[in-house]
């Protein structure tokens, strides 16, 4: 078939995306019940309608800031604890049980617990942080453990200070692990933040809008808001990836030259 001979991957992505949208549209036509499955047009119309109100932007910005805070906090704490746990076995043993429990606990358990502990507007940030920090921690720690032992031996012979070993050997070795774990946590950060918003329902939030859509059976609104979350997650991930690659120009130069 001609479609498979198209070389340009962007064109392919576009065609396949349109194909799935078509499937959605067809299914909506067959079901013919917007409460169960609204059509693409209905979802977009709902989105345009929402975009006419200032509260929509407020919801989006506040939710975005929550994800930003939650992921940001998990990056800082995850990196610090990851480095310490990778370097010192007792630190690893100290944090490992907590991280293991967090990793296996369903996100709703934390949301419900947090409802008891704190005010509703802080819950999404807290839950996002809890979901992301084990990912960063695990990756950074693995990076530390995978750091070339021979380079570390060289550092010990030349009596390089601990500070410089961390800055010039461990951090560059771990940076790849940090980047991929940040990219992985952004998606999870969004999902957990919105889930926490739906249950905790802070005054201003995308999740609050989703809850309302469920109560009033406005399924097209739910689809529209989900679309917003997906787009924001993509944009967020894109921006972060670019920020990181600019931030680490030295390493990038090395990576480019080695290609």
């Amino acid at each position, binding site marked *: 078939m001609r479609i498979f001979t198209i070389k340009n991957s962007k064109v392919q992505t576009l065609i396949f995306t349109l194909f799935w949208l078509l499937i959605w549209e067809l299914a909506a036509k067959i079901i013919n019940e917007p409460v169960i499955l609204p059509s693409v047009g209905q979802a977009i119309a709902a989105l345009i309608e929402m975009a006419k109100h200032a509260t929509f932007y407020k919801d989006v910005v506040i939710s975005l800031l929550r994800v930003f805070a939650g992921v940001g906090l998990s990056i800082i704490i995850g990196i610090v604890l990851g480095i310490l746990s990778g370097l010192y076995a007792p630190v690893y043993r100290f944090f490992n049980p907590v991280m293991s429990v967090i990793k296996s606990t369903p996100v709703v358990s934390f949301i419900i617990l947090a409802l008891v502990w704190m005010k509703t507007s802080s819950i999404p940030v807290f839950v996002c942080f809890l979901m992301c920090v084990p990912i960063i921690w695990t990756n950074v720690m693995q990076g530390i453990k995978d750091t070339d032992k021979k380079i570390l031996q060289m550092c010990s012979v030349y009596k*390089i200070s601990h500070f410089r070993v961390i800055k010039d050997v461990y951090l560059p070795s771990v940076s790849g692990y940090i980047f991929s774990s940040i990219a992985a946590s952004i998606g999870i950060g969004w999902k957990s933040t919105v889930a926490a918003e739906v249950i905790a329902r802070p005054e201003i939030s995308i999740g609050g809008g989703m809850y309302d859509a469920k109560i009033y059976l406005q399924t097209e609104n739910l689809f529209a808001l989900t679309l917003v979350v997906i787009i924001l997650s993509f944009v967020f991930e894109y921006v972060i990836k670019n920020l990181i690659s600019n931030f680490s120009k030295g390493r990038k130069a090395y990576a480019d030259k*080695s290609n």
Partner: protein
Amino acid sequence: MPIKVTDLKKTFSDNIIFDGLNIEFQDSRISCILGPSGVGKSTLFNIISKIESYDGGTIEGADKKRIAYVFQEDRLLEWKTVYENIAFVIADEKDVKHRVDEAIKSVKLTGYEKYYPKELSGGMRRRVALARAFVYNPDIMILDEPFKGLDIALKEDVMNDFYEQWKKNKFLVIMATHDIDEAVLLAYDIFILSKKPAVVKFEIDAKTMSKDTLESIIREHLEEAQ
């Protein structure tokens, strides 16, 4: 101060590397160690430079000394440039720029300061590792087959540069090599280690005889050590 290794014992699981090795490296001289692969040359170097522990015996003369070590592999930081790799070992000291420039000049890498290791040939990478050892101004320099991988013309060049550099400060040098020419050219003292557990098979003051005699004696003893 010489490095005096007395009754050194070292075992890796069931593999006895040293069972009472005695060897002494004189200060201000270049000592060469020859011997079959796997005889424990690198292990001895790792023990002297405190990378590895040992099971018994004593090592005198290496404590609190500045030790530079040129490993069998280059062990360069791939994310740092040539200049940064060399400056790395003296970053907290004085006069870094001048010292690094001198070291780069001594291994004939001027112009390559901003290159990354990945962009260099094997020979150039070895010269960066050598420059890193020189810039450190060591009391003791350990070289584990430092000229391996250099082509013949370059090897002579780098060896001569090494010798010129060394003459300025005359620190204690211990060098492992498989190459008899290297030993004949550079060594003051030559040790031949024989296999498992390693002992000093032969010790020779290289500067007391002609190069040809020295070469044939080494060859003879190396064959016996195999």
